[in-house]
């Protein structure tokens, strides 16, 4: 299995301060890769480095053979990476349908088919397509955000803590959808606070701490690792 994304020894941050140091990660085609770690480990920062929202000082990022380190976020998105930020991830004053439409802004054809696919993936949204995104519950908003990112048929979807602040029921629902998205042929990289549930979902996972790689392995192996349990999963 060849990697669709490979992050090679990336060091970077905002302004002069580096937040991640020598971080390396890969995502294989069709894989769900989860990034876990304590608060402030640099998980979301590493994801922002991939999507071009972070200044990368050293290192390389390859997406499907293209060296995307240093590209702007919009160019990376056009190249086939979808990104769902953790907060402010919908257009609140626009309807669900308009949110998805904006996701497809640069698409010239196949927009109707993309709508169909997204509404099939999120039947809840199909019923609320005329409602303002800002009026939806947190879980539904998360679905709008994921749907928007899927409108361009990305080959890789980056999700930054999609279950933050959601009820356990919605968390399960989101993870189910992540499996469906992968089944549709999209590789997924997921940053998560809910490490135990996320590791159960993951093909492979990375544990970051203090802005560096700490451990990596299959989700199952990391779940059983006593050190990981002690450090990050609360015993």
């Amino acid at each position, binding site marked *: 299995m060849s990697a669709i994304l490979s992050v090679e020894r990336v060091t970077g941050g905002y302004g002069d301060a580096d937040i991640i140091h020598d971080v390396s990660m890969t995502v294989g085609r069709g894989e769900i890769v989860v990034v876990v770690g304590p608060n402030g480990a640099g998980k979301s920062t590493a994801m922002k480095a991939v999507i071009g929202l972070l200044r990368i000082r050293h290192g390389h990022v390859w997406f499907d053979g293209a060296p995307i380190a240093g590209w702007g*976020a*919009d160019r990376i998105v056009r190249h086939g990476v979808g990104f769902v930020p953790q907060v402010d991830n919908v257009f*609140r*004053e*626009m309807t669900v349908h308009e949110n998805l439409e*904006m996701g497809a802004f*640069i698409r010239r054809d196949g927009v109707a088919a993309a709508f169909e696919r997204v509404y099939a993936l999120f039947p809840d949204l199909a019923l609320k397509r005329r409602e303002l995104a800002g009026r939806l519950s947190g879980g539904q908003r998360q679905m709008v955000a994921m749907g*928007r990112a899927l409108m361009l048929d990305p080959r890789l979807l980056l999700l930054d803590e999609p279950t933050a602040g959601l009820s356990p029921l919605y968390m399960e629902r989101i993870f189910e959808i992540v499996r469906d998205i992968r089944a549709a042929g999209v590789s997924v990289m997921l940053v998560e606070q809910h490490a135990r549930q996320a590791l159960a979902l993951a093909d492979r996972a990375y544990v970051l701490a203090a802005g560096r790689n700490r451990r990596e392995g299959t989700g199952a192996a990391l779940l059983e690792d006593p050190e990981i349990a002690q450090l990050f999963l609360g015993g």
Partner: protein
Amino acid sequence: MTLLDFVNFHIVPGLVLGSIYALGAIGVTLVFGVMRFAHLAHGDLATLGAFIALAVVWGTGLNPWFGLPAAMAFAAGVAIGADRLFYAHLRRRPLILTVIASLGVALMLRSLVQMGFGVDSQSYVRGIVRPDDYFGVRLRDRELLTLLAAGLLVLALTQFLARTRLGKAMRAMSDNPDLARLSGVDTGLVTALTWGIVGALAAAAGFFLGLNTELRSMMGWQLLLPMFAAAILGGVGRVEGALVGGLVVGVLEECAVLVIPAQYKSAMAFAVLLLMLSVRPTGLFRGKVL
């Protein structure tokens, strides 16, 4: 005073003035929404538009209405150009720098108008126009046409924002600029489009003010306060709010002369501004808080 007198002397002029304020306030609110700064050159852009229409009248001898499209197109170009030349490179710096730059643009535009047309007041047509009687309500043709044209422009804009791909992209950028960029929205194109619309609306406001009063090089600068008051009254970023806000400020100013000396009527805009900012800073239509 009868009700009809009240309508004829206060409500009608208030609505005409208010629709001019509304056209300006919509531009102010669009710049606030999409670019997130107070555009101080907005009034002088209106002045420029008014005088471009005058140049068309002088040059061709045609009815001033033929000058309106030319003025709108010219001011749209000037607004896009001012953004490219003076605001674009400040985009990553604190917004107050862009606000100050727009004050500079305001002074430049006004000076250009004064160099080209002098500082004396001018008008599109000479002579006195008698109003027509509509069941007791007296309206001049130009007043009726101002109300109609302003209404049509606002209708066209709201339909554009609600229905077209680029209009929705403008709303998206106003709503959440980072997410718009992450969705692949061409923010450069949307920015230019916004400036074009803003410039055209400002020119229309200036033209209608010139048509209903007279053209002076300071006319736009004096529009600035009521336009901002209207935008804030309606809620920053809200087109429908700016429309209502403009009409309210216009009617309030014309009604204020019943109780305060006429020279102080522009203080009403200031009163509205202060009241809204202290009581309900989101405006009537829940806009952004500055």
